[in-house]
């Protein structure tokens, strides 16, 4: 398991190619990448605040839970903080498993929990000013599908 919280850009290509590279015990790799999206062409930048210390701990806890639930060979989570421009990569997760169902489920689980349980807060800065991104009720709802 690898959890990285950083302000610097990450190398999606190298990380994806390196994750599970040459592992013949794994059949499936799933990755998710989050991009700063500019819905209406007005976004100048996004500022991501986080809670140093708690962030790494919360992500590791979520990743451990995924490993307990599914048969995973490895888990990678990278999440940036600081200032990001439209089109920049915010974060990525990758999972690998002998079977595709486990790799997909674990990646979706990680994303659902990172959205609502990892201590990051996004602020959007547009020509009109700054606004904190509000948590969406559907993001909270998304967690309920994982409750057993």
């Amino acid at each position, binding site marked *: 398991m690898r959890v990285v919280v950083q302000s610097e850009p990450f190398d999606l290509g190298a990380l994806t190619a390196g994750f599970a590279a040459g592992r013949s015990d794994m059949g499936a790799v799933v990755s998710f990448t*989050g991009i700063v999206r500019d819905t209406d062409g007005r976004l100048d930048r996004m500022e991501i*605040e986080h*809670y140093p*210390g*708690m962030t790494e*701990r*919360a992500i590791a806890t979520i990743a451990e839970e995924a490993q307990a639930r599914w048969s995973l060979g490895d888990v990678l989570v990278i*999440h940036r903080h600081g200032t990001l421009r439209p089109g920049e990569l*915010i*974060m990525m997760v990758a999972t690998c498993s002998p079977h595709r169902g486990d790799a997909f489920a674990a990646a979706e689980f990680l*994303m659902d929990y*990172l*959205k*609502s*349980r*990892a*201590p*990051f*807060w*996004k*602020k959007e800065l547009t020509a009109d000013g700054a606004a*904190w*991104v*509000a*948590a969406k009720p559907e993001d*909270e709802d998304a967690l309920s599908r994982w409750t057993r």
Partner: protein
Amino acid sequence: MLDVLYFAWVRERIGLPKERVETGAATVAELVAELSARDARYAAAFADISALRVALDQELSDFDAPLAGVREVAFFPPMTGG
């Protein structure tokens, strides 16, 4: 003595990211009541605790939780990672 941390708009409303607080509050709710009584900025930040989340020693908790043994309390809005 507690370290109290504020993030996102809670930090902005209160006007600082972190402070040390001398308190006899037994629960998070009692601490919130004490802080809210300080001035209008704190009162505004804590006006609707249903819009807030709290972490005790970097673990998500709730407003009924006891503060005994806790060293760090953080208040923030619902998280928006990913």
